């Protein structure tokens, strides 16, 4: 009976077509339309196009001359690097540590995964309070440690020079930290699942050969985890290109002084606030192209090992 189902392929179509149609209408059609929009002049969402740009590739040329786009591109690439190094890196270290303990592993899994279930908006507001200029949690801590300059005025009033965590010197740290923190748990769970799938026999054989600690991790765990790690890296790279919500809640439109743009926030600002829909669409195309290129590059660099 089962074999009959696999021989007759036509019933499968009935289940595949609705999902295909859904994607066609809600993903591929908007995507193609978005590409067309990049060549048109559109002064607001839902507004009729006022003809083609002159020249038609104007928006693409602007991508290379727009200084804020350069800032957004640079910050996004930096975020991608940080994501790979810190998000996946920390997740890997935590996963390896949790894998070695027998008691409390489930507790740590829940604790590390928890930030994922909190909305980015709520996290943004929370980190805004943590890094608040006057009286924020971090600044209060620094004040109590004597790390902030204070000055007593002739009137006896004490003036504190608070640290601006959103200024030019600190904004990258303040912006990236919550993003890193939020998604470490996501990769942690994937990696822990990968670790659980490594056959126990390999470790037992390694024990017999006298391999312990780092040697065991270096020659058994990491090679066996390679494919899962590659998946995590690709997810992290493509995910970092789309980061929007948390930085937008914390930094809005390019704070500080238009140095805080990411491709996602700049695209949103151009489309919704500046009503420059065609240019926003062009940035969206760039994000997709970057995503495809970077995920392909990472695929090639960390080519999947078929023998594992």
């Amino acid at each position, binding site marked *: 009976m089962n074999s009959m189902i696999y021989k007759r392929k036509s019933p499968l179509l009935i289940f595949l077509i609705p999902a295909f149609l859904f994607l066609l209408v809600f993903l591929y059609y908007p995507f193609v339309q978005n590409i067309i929009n990049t060549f048109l002049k559109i002064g607001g969402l839902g*507004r009729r196009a006022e003809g083609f740009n002159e020249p038609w590739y104007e928006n693409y040329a602007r991508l290379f001359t727009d200084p804020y786009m350069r800032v957004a591109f640079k910050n996004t690439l930096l975020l991608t690097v940080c994501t790979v190094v810190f998000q996946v890196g920390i997740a890997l270290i935590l996963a390896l540590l949790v894998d070695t303990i027998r008691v409390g592993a489930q507790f740590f899994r829940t604790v590390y995964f928890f930030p994922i279930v909190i909305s980015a908006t709520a996290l943004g507001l929370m980190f805004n309070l943590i890094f608040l200029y006057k009286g924020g949690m971090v600044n209060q801590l620094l004040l109590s440690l004597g790390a902030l300059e204070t000055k007593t005025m002739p009137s006896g*009033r004490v003036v504190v020079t608070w640290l601006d965590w959103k200024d030019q010197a600190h904004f990258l740290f303040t912006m990236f930290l919550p993003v890193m923190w939020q998604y470490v748990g996501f990769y942690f769970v994937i990696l822990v699942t990968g670790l659980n799938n490594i056959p126990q026999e390999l470790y037992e054989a390694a024990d017999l050969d006298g391999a312990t600690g780092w040697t065991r991790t270096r020659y058994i765990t990491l090679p066996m985890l390679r494919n899962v790690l590659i998946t995590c890296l690709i997810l992290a790279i493509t995910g970092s290109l789309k980061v929007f919500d948390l930085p937008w809640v914390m930094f*809005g439109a390019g704070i500080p*002084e238009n140095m805080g743009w990411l491709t996602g926030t700049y695209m949103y600002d151009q489309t*919704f606030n500046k*009503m420059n829909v065609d240019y926003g669409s062009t940035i969206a195309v760039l994000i997709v192209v970057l995503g495809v290129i970077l995920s392909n590059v990472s695929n090639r660099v960390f080519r999947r090992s078929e023998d594992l």
Partner: protein
Amino acid sequence: MKKLISILLVLAMVFSFVAVTAADDSVTINVVTSYGGDDGNRKNFEAAVKAYEEATGNKVNDGSATSNEDWKAKVLTDFETGSEPDVLFYFTNADAEPFVSAGKVVSIEEIRKEYPEYAANMKDSMMAVAADGKQYSVPSSGYWENMFVNKKVLEDCGVAIPGPDYTWDQFLQDCETIKANGFTPIACSLVEVPHYWFEFMVMNNGTVANHLDVPASVEDEAGQKWVKGLNDIKDLYERGFFPANTLTASDAETVELFNAGDAAFLIDGSWKVGYFTQNAADINDFAIAYVPGKGDRKASEAIGGISMGYFITTKAWNDPAKREAAVKFVEYLTSDEVLSTFVTTEVTALANGAKPAGLNPLQQSAADTNANVTAIAGAVQDLLTAEARGDLFANIQNIVTGKITAEDALAAALALNK
């Protein structure tokens, strides 16, 4: 047995559905206003909505938010994507033109054909007229913009509360004194709400009479006035009179700086009186004074008018179930009794005038200052398109830091003002 249970379950479901349908004949309308967030009239609005719901049995889906450029853009986007609310409380100037000219809101003339008493309690002459010569919105309370002062900070610094003859030179001197005493002279987020200072700096370089002249170019008289105004803001920034984090702080942060007694001056609008009424530790610490005058402008000349009103959307009007509910909602919110709860010192278009009761010291101070105001002009920024205004205000941070000249920033904004 199974069949019997199935039939009983189906019958129970049908009866409960019929019962719910029969009992729930109320109408739900979607309403968007600027009475959201920390708006001083938020509580009054909530009370009015609750009273409307109790009186009519209708329900209100309140999508209100704080008014800023993001909110304005979102409202316009909702109209353009067909997601507009049934009733909208919004700006009546050029900001409303996109949806007015698209026929997405109903004119008062049209509404009065079916509801002759609609907005009958308002002075028709004070209702905003759109570019097509028709009136579309029922005005709520008006507004004024002026200088809030923290009296305690001024007292600690030995600075007198500014009077109607306050001059620019005196202001600069006072700011130096305040700064030397370890306080921030001006509470303002130049990255988020530079527009109050922009209005007064433009007026300071012109007159109240020509305040509403929009430049056609950087070189014309109005253009030069705007450039000088923008450079005055730059001068204040360079003197260190704004908060140290003015280019990264939110409006809420700088207002709190003022509220907490760390800053002396704040230019804001009549809507902020309610905020301090609710949030000030001691309302007696605050007063409404005057923005310093320069050149031909006197400190007693201010910004003000009626800029917002209630619109009924064509979508709601064409929905027989919602038409009546939307009309009744606007009538209720703009009735003499309800509107009087929103008003303390603001002007209204009510034919019989508002009757605010029990003014607190700050409200009384606003009333006293308004009594001394010798002339008033609307906000000139309202005459710019959203794109031009957004671009100009986003560039103020670049002007003050010298990344762009005031002339270039203005030229870029004017290019978008079509």
